[in-house]
């Protein structure tokens, strides 16, 4: 993979921050966008902006066609069976909430179990806390073994006919840990539960195949995979989606309305009420094209290599510790680190002085971060356009910063 060629596709990477070239290592929060994605927004608004569905005029027909085409691209990206299984949402958070509101309210009852893992992002915790509170169901955490990995045997022993939903992150947005989702889903198949994959940190970075994983739902956000903000995806198996009640009510999601009642439209429209985010959905399709053209396996290999390089380099800094470090088979290009004395906010501000963007704080995963006895951490996360030289800059500046704050 030719990183310097790829970088040319991303206009923002030419920026200078505080007179230093931007080193963007905040990709787990959101990715940057290639020119093709930005151009597709301009093209839409300059040439064929129009409301979709049922319009007979040329602009509307073209907008509808492109909107539906992008759905096919997303379907291909994750190898769904049909594009009617791709529901457009605002972001992964909304996707997870739709499952909780629509599938959950109908199918989860008092005394049932919902399982999530200790690695989850708030968006894959709080909807289930609420659902369980509402339904008097139990929110349970998949058990870990001594080394902090999923304890598969213990997990299997906790599954039962009362298990109704298991929602797991494919990759932790704090530690970069990959969870054994395929194996877990296989175990869950013995129960009546549906399985949900929070794929926010996997779909942008590696080949993901919903049929191979055999999950029932998958949620992810466009903005973390080179797409624009404001568009996300809820994948669901069509037989399950067909049985679910709609979530939002209004235009487009109905087939017929009288003053008294309404009839629901077919998939995927049943779940897309009101004017959709047309421009951003189309641009997400362009982002899928871009990722596929380069190849997700290549992107993943590149990130693994960067991760390994970073982890090795980190070992040279004796007062910085990587949280939950794992062998390269079990981790992606996200790593959080901690310094006994210097607060992450100071680290973040100091790195920013040199144009290096990382994220600091709880990373929307307070319980996980706190399980390390801290309330905040610094996180660097890579993507296809990052290079070893950028990792070098990070490491060099970190040791400089250590001196600065200790006053030595």
């Amino acid at each position, binding site marked *: 993979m030719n990183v310097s060629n790829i970088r040319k596709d991303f206009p923002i990477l030419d920026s200078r921050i*505080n007179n230093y070239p931007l080193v963007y290592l905040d990709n787990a929060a959101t990715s940057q966008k290639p020119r093709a994605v930005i151009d597709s927004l301009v093209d839409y608004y300059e040439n064929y902006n129009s409301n979709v569905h049922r319009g007979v005029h040329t602009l509307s027909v073209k907008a509808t066609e492109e909107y539906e085409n992008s759905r096919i691209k997303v379907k291909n990206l994750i190898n769904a069976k049909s594009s009617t299984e791709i529901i457009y949402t605002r972001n992964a958070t909304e996707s997870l909430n739709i499952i909780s509101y629509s599938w959950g309210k109908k199918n989860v009852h008092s005394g049932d179990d919902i399982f999530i893992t200790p690695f989850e992002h708030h968006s894959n915790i709080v909807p289930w806390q609420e659902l369980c509170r509402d339904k008097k169901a139990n929110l349970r955490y998949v058990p870990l073994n001594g080394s902090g990995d999923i304890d598969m045997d213990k997990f299997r022993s906790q599954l039962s006919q009362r298990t109704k939903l298991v929602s797991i992150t494919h990759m932790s947005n704090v530690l970069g840990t990959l969870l054994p989702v395929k194996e877990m889903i296989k175990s869950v198949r013995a129960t009546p539960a549906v399985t949900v994959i929070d794929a926010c940190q996997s779909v942008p970075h590696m080949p993901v195949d919903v049929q191979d994983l055999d999950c029932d739902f998958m949620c992810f956000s466009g903005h973390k995979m080179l797409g624009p903000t404001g568009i996300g995806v809820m994948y669901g198996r069509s037989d399950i989606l067909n049985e679910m009640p709609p979530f939002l009510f209004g235009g487009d999601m109905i087939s017929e309305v009288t003053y008294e009642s309404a009839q629901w439209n077919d998939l995927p429209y049943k779940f897309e009420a009101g004017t959709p985010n047309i421009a951003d959905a189309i641009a997400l399709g362009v982002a899928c094209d871009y990722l596929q053209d380069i190849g997700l396996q290549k992107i993943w290999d590149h990130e693994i290599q960067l991760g390994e390089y970073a982890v090795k380099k980190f070992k040279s800094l004796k007062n910085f510790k990587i949280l939950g470090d794992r062998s390269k088979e079990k981790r992606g290009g996200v790593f959080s680190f901690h310094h006994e004395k210097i*607060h*992450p*906010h*100071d680290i973040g501000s100091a790195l920013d*002085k040199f144009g290096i963007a990382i994220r600091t*704080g709880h990373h929307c995963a307070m319980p996980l971060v706190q399980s390390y006895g801290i309330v*905040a951490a610094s996180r660097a996360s890579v993507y296809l356009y990052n290079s070893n030289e950028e990792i070098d800059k990070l490491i060099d500046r970190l040791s400089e910063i250590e001196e600065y*704050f200790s006053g030595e």
Partner: protein
Amino acid sequence: MSELTDFDEMYQEIVLDHYRNPRNKSKLSRDFLETKSYNPFCGDEIELQLSINDGKLEDISVTGRGCAISQSSGSLMSEVVINKSINEIKEISLIIRSLLKNEEVQEKDLDRLGDAFALEGVKKFPVRIKCALLSWAALKDLIDQY
């Protein structure tokens, strides 16, 4: 770390000095008011003890853990407010708040801040203002109770 930037204005030498060598850190032994303040987003913690006599702050202790800004701000604050009357402290609290929120502050009011004026550099960093104000907010809560 060369070149003078917004960053350097925030982490001025005097701020760093208070971070590295915090003042008024020993817990009080006589009667005191006490509070612990906490910012869940970054985990900054400030613990305050005040000894007030006759409407005047006779002694103060500031401890805690967190970023350089929240901790140095607590230390700087302790130096400005010690031996001042409650009313004066209330006014100074308002001045520092206005300064950081980028509201207009009169020259003669700025003079009343002493070294704590060094916190001005934080105003260019909106996310860090909460850090700088953490101890001041705790102080205000405590003396409002008084």
